[in-house]
């Protein structure tokens, strides 16, 4: 039976791209877009970069120009929180009331982990939403003596880079032996560490945070580390990962396990699909069940999930099995990575050099090309991404001339 209407819960990148895809596919029924933030869909990557730096204002963040957004003819409900769903009765519960839904697309994303005990301490921030970014930006504009960044993942590293760009002293604390060691491997993590130190970041790796100290006004003033040292801090930014927003689906009849569990076509149940940071699915290309928090994944899944929802539940679809890809801009370096790498993969630099901060490195496992990392090498990353997609062997990739 053809789809009558679609409810999209989550009004960020995946949800918007899904809505666009529904319309582009010719779906004319009601499309309801529900978001818990008061803002229209906006782009998050600039929040830690141009927006935090003070170079961009919020009007530059819109994900869809106003005329194109209106042309989608969505029923947009902003500032509305989804609180429950029942697969049997197809009841969606929200802060604006209950309703019965036909097609449901779950794109509720993820939220930042907080540092236990610091949740309500003034001067301690996470960075995920526009409101987070505005608050943090105001703190940076007030001229803090030192910002301490907890966690040297992408958000932490980008915040550190932006702070240095604003001339603010930065310490960055990382529990692993190097920044991004789990994503880039040990050796490239060390390169990332060098970059931060060259830029004047006081980077401390292999050390945890024992706790935060507050002054008599209840505002953070110091970070205590597991090696016994203490760093004075006017502002603390916590970037220690995210948790998928699935609590509202507990008891819904959908399977939850660090995300909404989907099949290889992003279907989570009859007439229910998931997309973006919240979706966990088996990526058959890599023989691995994954949940991917990258921007490009949210776009691709939003598009795919919308098409999935328009097809019959028992339709045979090509599985969703992309080569994950992301970028991160830190200082003057564009880091890009495609594929799935592990710490023990073979790694070889194929063009440029680490010293000039301009290179591409290939990662191989069991004779296959599984990943490519580029520092300021977008052309190479995309070529090798295509080779990963085509199932090239590691030797073929090494021999490929660009």
């Amino acid at each position, binding site marked *: 039976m053809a789809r009558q209407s679609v409810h999209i819960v989550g009004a960020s990148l995946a949800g918007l*791209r899904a809505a*666009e895809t529904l319309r*582009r596919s010719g779906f004319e029924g009601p499309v309801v877009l529900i978001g818990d933030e008061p803002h229209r869909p906006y*782009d998050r*990557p600039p929040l830690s970069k141009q927006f935090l730096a003070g170079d961009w204002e919020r009007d530059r963040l819109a*994900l869809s120009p106003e005329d194109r957004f209106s042309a989608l003819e969505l029923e947009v409900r902003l500032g509305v929180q989804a609180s429950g769903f029942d697969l049997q009765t197809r009841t969606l519960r929200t802060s604006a009331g209950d309703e019965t839904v036909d097609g449901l697309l779950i794109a509720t994303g993820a939220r930042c982990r907080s540092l236990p005990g610091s949740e309500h301490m003034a001067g301690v921030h996470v960075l995920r939403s526009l409101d987070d970014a505005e608050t943090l930006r105001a703190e940076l504009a007030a001229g803090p003596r030192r910002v301490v960044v907890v966690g040297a993942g992408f958000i932490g590293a980008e915040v550190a880079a932006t702070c240095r760009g604003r001339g603010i002293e930065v310490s960055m604390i990382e529990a692993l032996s190097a920044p991004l060691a789990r994503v880039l491997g040990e050796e490239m993590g060390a390169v990332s560490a060098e970059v931060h130190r060259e830029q004047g970041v006081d980077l401390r790796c292999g050390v945890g945070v024992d706790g935060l100290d507050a002054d008599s006004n209840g505002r953070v003033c110091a970070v205590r580390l597991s090696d016994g040292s203490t760093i004075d801090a006017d502002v603390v930014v916590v970037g220690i990962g995210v948790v998928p927003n699935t609590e509202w689906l507990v008891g819904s009849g959908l399977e939850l396990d660090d995300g909404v569990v989907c099949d290889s076509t992003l279907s989570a149940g009859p007439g229910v699909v998931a997309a973006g940071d919240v979706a966990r699915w088996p990526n058959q290309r890599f023989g691995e069940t994954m949940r991917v928090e990258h*921007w*490009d994944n949210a*776009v*691709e899944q939003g*598009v795919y999930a919308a098409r999935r929802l328009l097809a019959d539940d028992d339709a045979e679809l090509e599985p969703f099995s992309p080569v994950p*890809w992301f*970028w991160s*801009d830190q200082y003057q370096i*564009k880091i*890009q990575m495609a594929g799935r790498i592990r710490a023990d993969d073979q790694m070889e630099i194929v063009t440029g050099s680490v010293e000039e901060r301009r290179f591409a490195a290939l990662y191989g496992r069991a004779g296959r090309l599984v990943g490519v990392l580029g520092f*300021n090498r*977008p*052309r190479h*990353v*995309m070529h090798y*991404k*295509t080779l990963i997609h085509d199932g090239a062997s590691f030797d073929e990739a090494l021999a490929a001339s660009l």
Partner: protein
Amino acid sequence: MKVVVDFDLCESNAICMQIAPDVFEVRDDDFLYVLNENPDEGDRARMEECVQRCPKQAITIED
């Protein structure tokens, strides 16, 4: 159909090149070049994908 790139926004992430290498090319100077500004109407779906997946939202389609 006309494809327009805002080069003030473009940062040569090269996603468009992966989708449509006959239309977009990032060269070794790290700049994006548009090889065909007027793709055929039948190519619209692929061009829309480039618009949606550009991380800098630098691509627009003018009818």
